[in-house]
């Protein structure tokens, strides 16, 4: 990297390189857009990589339980940015009565997210997916690779992954169903917000404090809780995150639960 680049330039440069390399290797490729800040940043990076027009489809997995503000944001910017938007829904599961927030978390996530994506991948024969996950987001994501193969059942064998030393990526994979590509893996939450500020990116209003509450991470409505916050501007959010000692996904019920469960199992002797 050039010494003239600042930190955000370096991050952007690396991400653009990964996105272009991915498109070069896989013509049957798509990018996932959850309408959150990370994937919206990713969409911006994809647009920049191809001079304003993304040459592959953008998939939104719709569980039917997103915030109204997320649907408004999606529809507005899909049109403005001329995205080839595919909305993936597991309509068959919905018809069976599977509903987000009812029953166990696994069934709704598995049916309405994983299976919806599986159906979409099969229908369009996608061989690669670009996702906006980051290493600092969650413990398990720290083990991810930039080019991450998945087997036929969508399984990720995290103990058997290609090494990515010195930024050398194994971008070709002939024995896997599909490859996931993570151009934001090296970004942090603060990096994303600083980039949003620099690029003046539109971002969902749910992230900004209203009546002392804001969402730090967006998911499905029944499983996402706001945090106490007065940060109603990007600058204030950046300052808040720098001081924060809680995890970004603390508002997501599944993550919080796992931490409590682990704590309790330790009391019984589990390591």
């Amino acid at each position, binding site marked *: 990297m050039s010494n003239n680049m600042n930190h955000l330039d370096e991050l952007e440069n690396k991400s653009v390189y990964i996105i272009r390399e991915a498109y070069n290797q896989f013509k049957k490729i798509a990018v996932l857009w959850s309408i959150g800040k990370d994937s919206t940043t990713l969409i911006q990076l994809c647009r920049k990589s191809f001079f304003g027009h993304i040459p592959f489809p953008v998939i939104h997995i719709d569980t039917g339980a997103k915030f109204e503000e997320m649907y408004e944001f999606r529809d507005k910017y899909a049109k403005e940015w001329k995205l080839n938007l595919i909305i993936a829904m597991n309509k068959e599961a919905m018809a069976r009565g599977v509903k987000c927030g009812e029953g166990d978390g696994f069934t709704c996530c598995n049916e309405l997210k994983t299976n919806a994506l599986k159906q979409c991948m099969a229908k369009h024969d996608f061989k690669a997916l670009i996702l906006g996950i980051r290493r600092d987001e969650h413990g398990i994501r720290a083990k991810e690779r930039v080019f991450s193969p998945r087997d036929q059942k969508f399984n990720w064998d995290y103990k058997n992954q290609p090494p990515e030393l010195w930024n050398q990526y194994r971008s070709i994979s002939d024995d896997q169903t599909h490859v996931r590509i993570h151009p934001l893996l090296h970004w942090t939450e603060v990096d994303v917000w600083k980039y949003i500020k620099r690029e003046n990116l539109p971002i969902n209003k749910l992230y900004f404090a209203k009546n002392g509450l804001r969402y730090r991470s967006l998911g499905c409505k029944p499983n996402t809780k706001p945090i106490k916050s007065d940060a109603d501007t990007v600058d204030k959010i950046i300052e808040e995150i720098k001081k924060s000692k809680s995890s970004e996904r603390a508002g997501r019920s599944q993550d919080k639960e796992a931490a*409590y469960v*682990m704590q*309790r*199992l330790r*009391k*019984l*002797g*589990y390591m």
Partner: protein
Amino acid sequence: MFIIGLDGATWDIIKPNIDKLPTFKKILSQHDNYTISLQQKPWSASVWCSMFSGKLPEEHNHLDFVKDGEVQTRNDVKVDFIWDILSRNNISVKALNIPFIVPPYNYNIYFNPPGYGVPLTQEELNTEITEITNKIVSVTGDSKPELFIAVYTALDKMSHLHWGGESLIDYYIKIDKAVNKIFELDEKVLILSDHGFTDYDKAPVQTLPKITSTGNELKGDHHPDAIAIAKNIPFKVNQPIDVFNGLISYFNVK
């Protein structure tokens, strides 16, 4: 059909204390009852998983609640369970508090278990019995499925922490009262445990360290002899996978 799981229930407590357990005394005199001597290791997660998936541990590869320092979730267990298969065949099924993972798994029913599914305080241990029983009793009429599976998990924690003590007998008395409320809810009822219990130092396998990381001393550990009580159940459970195989055969699905 109704399957009631009692995690860690053992004849070694029930039979010597039968006069304090009127429901068990009555149903044992009226219905088939026998011991399931496990051939697989008596690890709860693994046995419940075998019971409802029909897979041996080497097939489902789900041995414990925690793997490599991480709490396992439904997503980590790569099998279809009986409820998945029956649902695909349009047979109504509910599964309540199935402890092959923690928090225990629910299917087609909502339940928020006390203590995140690892009840440890006396209040949490007692609350689990009440809440599971109330939930079972509330499933009536049109919401009652063709197969309903429910598991009381806190007996296992009680037995680890209070084996040999009077408080464990008192807990069995509470379980006995709960069984009294639910045993007549269906014509076909199967009561099962996933393993038995014994004194920690006499247990053939130690599933947990005697002194836990927080300084608790465990008094009991798992024994491979589990219990079964069967009311009008058309199959015999010799090993955990027989539950799955028996249900597949009974409901005539593949």
